[in-house]
């Protein structure tokens, strides 16, 4: 992935917002891709965690808004515990999710899940899923 950097592509405010929400500093990332290697969900993602960190470093919020990476993240912290730069990447993913959810957009709609699915799921799947996917 090649990023053309211009004055317009960089959004300092977006980076600051992301850092504030996550409590992390995305600038620390050195693009080693250990996170992608550790991620159990990487195959489901259209952009790997490393690429997302790269986008985040430039505050490319428009690009980040349309990808599925942070919706496929299972918050398992496999990336976080192995990051050589000590970034809690799971928190960056949560910050990306929250930026969408806080505008009252749901990623899944509880009312559209079938009664059979809800009846079968353990409660923690519903509680955790609604936390991560509903506003």
């Amino acid at each position, binding site marked *: 992935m090649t990023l053309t950097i211009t004055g317009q592509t960089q959004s300092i405010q977006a980076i600051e917002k992301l850092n504030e929400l996550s409590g992390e500093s995305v600038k620390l990332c050195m693009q080693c891709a250990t996170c992608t290697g550790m991620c159990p969900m990487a195959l489901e993602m259209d952009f790997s965690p490393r690429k997302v960190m790269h986008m985040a470093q430039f505050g490319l919020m428009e690009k980040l808004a349309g990808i599925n990476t942070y919706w496929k993240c299972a918050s398992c912290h496999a990336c976080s515990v192995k990051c050589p730069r000590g970034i809690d990447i799971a928190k960056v993913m949560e910050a990306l999710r929250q930026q969408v959810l806080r505008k009252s957009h749901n990623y899944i709609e509880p*009312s559209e899940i079938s*009664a059979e699915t*809800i009846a079968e799921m353990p409660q923690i799947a519903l*509680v955790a899923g*609604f936390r991560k996917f509903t506003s």
Partner: protein
Amino acid sequence: MCETDQKTVKKMPRVATGDRAILPEGAKTIPVYIMGKMYEVPETLTIMKAMEFAGFKFLRGAGCRGGICGACPTVYRMAGDYKLHFGLACQTVVEANMYLAQIPFFPANRAIFNIDEIGGLPEAIHALYPEIFRCVACNQCTKACPMDVDVLGYISALKQGNIEKAAKLSFDCIQCGLCASRCMGEIPQYHAAQLARRVYGRYIVPQAEHLKARVAAIESGKYDAMLDELAAMSKEDLEKKYVEREREPDFAEIGSWQPKETRYL
């Protein structure tokens, strides 16, 4: 102005009619703020009567006026304090510098179900109200309840699959909807609780044996003759019979009293 004969118009004391409040002679008034506007109202009134005194007319949002129908939930705050308080307009007495608004209805989700089809398992409730899993235990629902119901407690019980506990904890709910109005999870707690009580009544609580026996006796026609006899009586005879009816004395020990008329036992 229409013409009136000033001599025939007697100066009437200010008396409200119907549900309107009566201001007693010399009563003290206090300021309350209804939807932001100040009104001087007698300090002895309930919020509902005070609003009527101020000129509001309840077309909806008032029901039993006895604190049980849940139609008149009110949110209020005292001037100078951030804290929100909740009550029923027909039960809560006004206080000076009260800022208040009525929440007569809240557009909470209410599921449609057939009680005979959904079955008695907690999953039935989970499927109809999956939003209960959005609860964050913030407890605003419990704080908002004008009936002191442990709302968080019964939502927790429902999440844990304990319908009986939810039904019992929510027994005093009057369906006013204040809980839902405060919920950051957009949960319709009171509707979920009502469903829990219905499922509890239909599937879980044991059916009373004596009730079943009595229904069977009624259906077998055991009491038809008695009813026919009553139905055929004149009004006077019926009244006489009522006045002369035998009554079990209050606090009679079980089995210690028998009516003289034993034909119907």
